[in-house]
């Protein structure tokens, strides 16, 4: 029995009939073709599938697509603005915050949740906010620097704007 859902993803509204057991990450990848969200462990440990649902970071492998009905979803594909990289994306590039890149979309989305709550996090706060995201390449060192880079950039922008 398919269930009808309506979800806003990266600013665009979609209506689909889905099998209730469809995971949100499958819906994003297989139905919408947004393959930037990765499936790592599939057991809500590694955080590779992290996206924002109504502004909060969640692991999309541990959420059903039907649970997202009526919600606003943001994935890594929705971070750049008209081709201009989001400060977090830029930070990860500038500070070499990735090697294989598999965990990066989840890292960036979890960091986006952090920066939306705390625009000037300490190193400790960044590390705590990323506890739910595993990286097996970088040793996290440059990931922390990447988030700091983004925070600085966002704060500078806000200063200029005001």
């Amino acid at each position, binding site marked *: 029995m398919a269930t009808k859902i309506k979800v806003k993803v990266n600013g665009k509204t979609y209506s689909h009939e889905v099998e209730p057991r469809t995971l949100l990450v499958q819906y994003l990848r297989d139905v919408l073709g947004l393959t930037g969200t990765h499936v790592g462990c599939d057991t809500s440990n590694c955080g590779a599938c992290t996206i924002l649902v109504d502004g909060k970071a969640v692991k999309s492998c541990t959420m059903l697509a039907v*649970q997202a009905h009526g919600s606003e979803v943001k994935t890594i594909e929705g971070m750049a603005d008209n081709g201009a990289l989001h400060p977090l994306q830029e930070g990860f590039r500038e500070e070499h915050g990735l090697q294989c890149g598999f965990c990066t979309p989840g890292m960036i989305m979890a960091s986006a949740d952090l920066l939306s709550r705390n625009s000037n996090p300490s190193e400790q706060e960044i590390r705590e906010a990323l506890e739910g995201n595993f990286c097996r390449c970088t040793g996290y060192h440059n990931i922390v620097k990447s988030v700091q880079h983004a925070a600085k950039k966002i704060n500078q922008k806000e200063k200029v704007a005001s």
Partner: protein
Amino acid sequence: MIPNNFQYHRAASVDDALTLMAKHGMDAKLLAGGHSLLPAMKLRLNQPDVLIDIGHLKELRYIKKEGNELVIGAGATHDDIAHSQMARETFSMLSEAADLIGDVQVRNKGTLGGSLAHADPAADWPAVMIAAHANIEVKGPQGTRTVAADDFFTGFFSTALADNEIITAIRIPEPPKGTNSSYQKFMQPASRFAIVGCAASITMNGRLCSKVSVAFTGLSDAAFRASNIEAALFEKMPTEENITAAVQKAGEGVMAMSDHFASEEYRLHLARVFAKRALMAAAK
């Protein structure tokens, strides 16, 4: 991993969910944040025929003061509680425990009511709720009743909740002035569940403890109150010496769990260590 197929119902309200539960009986499971149920379903540890979704219900998601009680809606997420000034002011162990659950993403979805209903023997909330003398409000076809947290956790993944009831709220009596509390746990590094967790609260009257509450999780098949430690500190000064002596009683008469993370002996050792840490922090 994809769960087994099931019928999905999005409840329009708590009452609608109760009607759906009455209709589907034992075949149905409630879905709130889904952070205990969905992993179990993906592993085929649980294969319900029907899911009744209450995760989006705003009527269950709040934190408020009502008379001399802090009332937390069953649908409040761990993150809601971690960031609630009201919760922190009532019992700091509420915010401390919320902050130690899983990770940010898990805290954003997982709910207090869901955790209590699931009653994982290693979950953090049951110990905190027992130490806080919380009352758990449940609604069924017959109306609403409250169950003291002390009586709620009946065993391994078992509670006093009937099959046709929903947890709607958690009522925490405002502690007397001079109360301080803490939650301390030794966590499994991957799951971040408690291998042993201890929630402790101390109310001071002058230099003596006029009320002591201590509860453990992770130690045995269900969270429980350590009445022996409470009695050992009652009307005593909460000095390191007295606390050290009192926590020697941790786990007395309890069948401690043993698994590949921690043996029975090691768990009992951890119980003494973490009870001491929680009590020392609450004594400050």
